């Protein structure tokens, strides 16, 4: 059994006009030491997914269904008390913007020590020693002085190192990193990412990497999820998806990568923009932007407009697309005919 198993996760926001479904039918597993990437445009539900794993979604959001099983225990219905033992201890998080993540009025040391003390019965002295050790691991220069400094005295990159150190404080099983390098200077993004990956490898920590950067995901993760408008539309081994994307949206994303464009020409882009969750189009949420809505005869496929596509297995991947389903059916029919 996997370390983390998420089944049919369903997250909604209770708004005045009724519930808005921010996340639906999300399923995935994560093993110890494994790296999973979640990609999508902003607003696709990546962060909601990250926060709902530890039941940290802010009101009016709530988990409406599905299960999150971590180490054999169900997290989705767990009381706050029990969840607190998991948060920061066995599953920790790294947030997007290091400038906003640390409390401005508490010293770095205080923010590290409190985390240790919340989970272990140790003295402040011991806690400071551990904190110092972790600061050393994230390669912060003169870590002793950093402990008594305040966040505003550190640069953005330094702060993200501190946050990584905090995430590693209690030797967690899983780290959920929500766009850990997006807010940083381009020059240090790779540095921080490398540090994070190295430390995860070293301590055999499972990593859920949430990002809009397909390039990063393709380089560092073993498996990936592509999200669109609150749903997973394609998931499977990273290499297979990158080499042979099935879903038109994933194809679009890969084509939009700068390295895919011919030098000197314009970058490829997916026309249109992602719909708002409160006003999803009928049928497949991607159909207004999809280049494959029309079938071979040039008429729009009725299923795309009317029916939300279910998952079909394609190799090691799962894809939610009517066109792909049609193609697979066709292949099966063809192969059956051949046998006959």
């Amino acid at each position, binding site marked *: 059994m996997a370390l983390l198993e998420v089944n049919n996760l369903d997250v909604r926001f209770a708004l005045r006009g009724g519930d808005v479904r921010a996340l639906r039918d999300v399923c995935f597993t994560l093993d110890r030491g494994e790296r999973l990437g979640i990609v999508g445009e902003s607003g696709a539900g990546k962060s909601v997914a990250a*926060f709902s794993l*530890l039941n*940290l979604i*802010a009101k009016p959001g709530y988990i409406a269904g599905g299960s999150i099983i971590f180490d054999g225990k169900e997290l989705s219905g767990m009381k*706050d008390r029990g969840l*607190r*033992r*998991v*948060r*920061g*201890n066995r599953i*920790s*998080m790294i*947030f997007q*913007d290091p400038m*906003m*993540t*640390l*409390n*401005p*009025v*508490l*010293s770095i040391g205080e923010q590290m020590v*409190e*985390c240790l003390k*919340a*989970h272990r019965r140790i003295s402040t002295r011991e806690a400071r020693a551990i904190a110092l050790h972790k600061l050393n691991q994230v390669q912060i220069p003169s870590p002793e002085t950093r402990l008594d400094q*305040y966040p*505003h*005295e550190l640069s953005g990159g330094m702060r993200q190192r501190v*946050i990584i150190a*905090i995430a590693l404080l209690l030797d967690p099983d899983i780290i959920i990193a929500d766009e850990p390098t997006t807010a940083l200077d381009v020059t240090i993004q790779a540095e921080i990412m490398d540090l994070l990956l190295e430390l995860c490898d070293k301590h055999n920590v499972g990593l859920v990497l949430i990002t809009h950067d397909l390039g990063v995901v393709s380089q560092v993760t073993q498996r990936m999820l592509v999200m669109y408008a609150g749903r997973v539309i394609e998931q499977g081994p990273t290499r297979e998806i990158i080499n042979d994307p099935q879903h038109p949206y994933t194809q679009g994303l890969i084509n939009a990568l700068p390295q895919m464009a011919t030098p000197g020409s314009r970058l490829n882009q997916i026309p249109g923009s992602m719909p708002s969750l409160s006003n999803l189009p009928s049928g497949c949420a991607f159909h207004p932007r999809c280049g494959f809505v029309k079938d071979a005869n040039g008429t729009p496929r009725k299923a795309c407009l009317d029916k939300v596509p279910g998952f079909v297995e394609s190799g090691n991947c799962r894809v939610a697309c009517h066109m792909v389903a049609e193609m697979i059916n066709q292949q099966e029919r063809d192969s059956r005919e051949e046998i006959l």
Partner: protein
Amino acid sequence: MIAFLIKRLFHAFLVMFVISVISFAIQDNLGDPIQQMVGQSVPESERAELREELGLNDPFFVQYLRFAKNAAQFDFGYSYIFNEPTTQVIMRHLPATLELVAATTLLIVLLSVPIGVYSAIKPRAWLSRAFMGISIVGISIPVFLTAIVLIQLFAIGVEVTPFPVDTVWGAWLNDLLSTDGGMPAYGRGNPVNVFGTWDTNFSSLEGLTYLVLPAISLASIMLPLFIRLIRAEMLEVLQSEYVKFARAKGISLRRIYFVHALKNTMLPVITVGGVQIGTLVAYTILTETVFQWPGMGLMFLDAIERSDIPLIVTYLMIVGLIFVITNTLVDLIYGLVNPTVKLTGKPA
């Protein structure tokens, strides 16, 4: 630290300068010291001589410098009403006002923080809604009216008999709805002299009872503002990323509320609130009038009524000084509490 202090002192000096110019302009245009000194019967020629002698014909600037020089030595002349140096009159009335403000501040701080924090943590609880409802009613009642109602209820007493008097339960319910009165609501009783001209109400229980109604009425205007301010700031802080991160670290809610959130909440509250405590002095004029509390406010109103210009001017200068001192202290405290403010004067 020193640069910060110098900057603050310069600012304070600037404010005092503006206030002194205004005060001087008032004195120059409204007060006629000759009239006060010699009365009606003295002939015009003698008056002109005296005017020249006192330097009243000097240019505005020269006269202002003389005024400022005296003001720096706390010499603002003689009060018409009391016939003694105005500073002496002020010093006699100052303790009463300061004690009233101190008692009120204590009430505000002790009540507003817990109530504000509670209604931010549990915004939907009925108690929070009740606090919010009461606070908007509180804002809508002028101080002097609160004072009058308090006098009616607790000094005079209200006897209502909506239930039959001759039954045991009726009498009990009537008693419950009625108030006894008897709380002191006039002056400050017999305050005990501590040293110099300082009489205090804080030294005995009896003295304190005189403070109760005036302090509650004075607090009634600021308490709702503070509760709403603390609640609003705390709600905002609870939405912040660092509070979310603290939750993701598995910290207990209590620590998140009272260490992570409260400290950040109090920063803006200190700046806004500190200034508001200073403005309490303005509201003492109303409270002291209703309760005949023998402080500076009552004295000031008396001075206005009898056109005691030197006393009015002194009051303005002293109150200005009090405001400037509280504002400077508030800035200092803010600088000490907030680690992102470096007291070196350089922005961090």
